[in-house]
């Protein structure tokens, strides 16, 4: 549903031609470091950024000509809290329902259902400013559902939340996906992408650099086994030259950690032991999305 999508601000190109297609009912993720163009892409979907080039259609409607109609059919959970803080939880949803011209009776019914869905029913009469960060995020999700949208767009839905709050949000988003809603989200948490997304794209510097299911991405871009070696700075250099030949790929994150990708971890560990290089700590694990990410975006994420 997007092809050749571009956005420039003066000389700066925030998006340099992006293509993707999201099918109905799937959870689609945009993954990438800050400044990769994720939020810009999301804002284009809900009309807060107008592309400077390319095509983009949402729910089959062209964004250049059907702004209002698209907005009527999607729900948006923004990155920043923009609730009416001085109003009560219920009032926030009532006001929002009016923007969609929904009858008050319907909004009241949905308010009860949605607050139940995001587990905020007890807070219905509380002022928003009294809610915790996790509750506000859940209320933002409930608000985005007030018009019963086909597509829910979520910009970093769990950034800044503590682990409990994050799990609760994930749980609710999976429930939404199970209901058949199309979810489009951005994140820079690999775990979030791996847990929620059916398919995802990895963005960097305004471009999509890889895409597929989490499983495909791991299979395609990294070897199945990862060894994380931690060692002193000078030992790392030595280790690097030793393993470079036998490993499929080596990635350095920071000064003292080496990620080594291989088909046969045991052989490689044996080799390192035999070499006598002083290693402080070794972790052996399965490769995941995070490795794909580091592999593709290199150390730039860390910087």
């Amino acid at each position, binding site marked *: 549903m997007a092809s050749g999508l571009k956005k420039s*601000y003066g000389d700066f190109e925030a998006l340099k031609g992006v293509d993707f297609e999201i099918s109905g009912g799937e959870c689609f993720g945009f993954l990438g470091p800050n400044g990769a163009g994720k939020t810009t892409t999301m804002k284009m979907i809900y009309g807060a950024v107008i592309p400077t080039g390319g095509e983009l259609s949402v729910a089959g409607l062209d964004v250049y000509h059907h702004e*209002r109609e698209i907005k*009527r059919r999607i729900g948006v959970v*923004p990155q920043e809290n923009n609730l009416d*803080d001085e*109003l009560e939880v219920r*009032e926030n949803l009532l*006001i929002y329902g009016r*923007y*969609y011209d929904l009858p008050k009776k319907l909004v009241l019914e949905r308010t009860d259902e949605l607050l139940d869905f995001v587990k905020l029913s007890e807070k219905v009469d509380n002022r928003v400013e009294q809610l915790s960060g996790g509750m506000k995020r859940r209320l933002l999700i409930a608000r985005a559902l007030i018009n019963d949208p086909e597509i829910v767009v979520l910009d970093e839905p769990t950034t800044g939340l503590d682990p409990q709050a994050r799990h609760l949000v994930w749980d609710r988003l999976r429930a939404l996906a199970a209901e058949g809603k199309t979810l489009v989200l951005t994140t820079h948490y690999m775990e979030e992408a791996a847990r929620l997304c059916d398919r995802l794209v990895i963005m960097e510097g305004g471009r999509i650099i890889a895409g597929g299911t989490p499983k495909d991405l791991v299979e395609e871009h990294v070897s199945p086994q990862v060894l994380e070696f931690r060692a002193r700075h000078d030992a790392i250099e030595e280790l690097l030259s030793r393993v470079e030949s036998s490993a499929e790929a080596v990635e350095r994150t920071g000064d003292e950690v080496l990620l080594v990708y291989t088909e046969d971890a045991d052989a490689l560990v044996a080799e390192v032991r035999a070499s006598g290089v002083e290693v402080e700590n070794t972790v052996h694990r399965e490769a995941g999305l995070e490795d794909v990410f580091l592999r593709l975006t290199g150390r730039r994420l860390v910087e």
Partner: protein
Amino acid sequence: MLAPRIPSLRGAFRVWQRNVTIFRKFWISGLFPNFIEPLIYLAALGLGLGAFIQQGGISGQSYVQYIGPGLLASNAMFAASFESTFNTFVKLRFDKIYDAIITTPVNAEDVIAGEYLWAGTRAALYGTGFLAMLIALGTAFGEPLITSWWALLIPPMLLLIGIMFSVLGTLFTSLISHIDLFAYYFTLVITPLFLFSGIFFPVENFPAPVPQVAWFTPLYHAVNVCRELATGPSVGVIVDVLWIVVFTGALALIPVQIMRRRLIG
């Protein structure tokens, strides 16, 4: 360049409705200063300074009678100006309320039009309260401040005056990036308008070009209209009303476009 966006009434109404909902919860806290301020001017200048202007007053009116209706106009100006500067800026920059609204079928241009309507409504609401107080005070002290049934047209006129100053305030708000800059607007625009628009003394008595300059400023006409409606209007008041309508209409779409560009990348 894209064609200018014309706001939809439906969207503007929804934004106006949001403000009404919030106002209904908090109107009492905002009411007091809005009421008290013109009363303070009325007492200090009308009674205090007015004591020295006994002989004949101005155009056959006592000084209190002269300034009362003018304060109705300035009250509307202040109400709409605060709404369209500080309040709008906070919603735009700090609370991100507009960002939330524009993800719904309500567009950025509707938001600004809704804010105009709301600022006008607030000016009319508080102004009507103040008008009622002027009538009551005039009756109580046996010196009527409002002497014509035409005064019934003052509330709708205050709505229009409020919208005019909302357009002006929003124009300034749309151009600035820091909230402290509003001090310039109030010191260099609103205060001079307040003092030199014929509320406290007729500007016509000033040497040229003061009266001519005053003619080109918005509050001058708003004061004329309120004073004439309070005492029984002459035909000339039509010119003042037209001036307000034309000025408002000519400027109204400019802040809409600038604000749209601030909200939509």
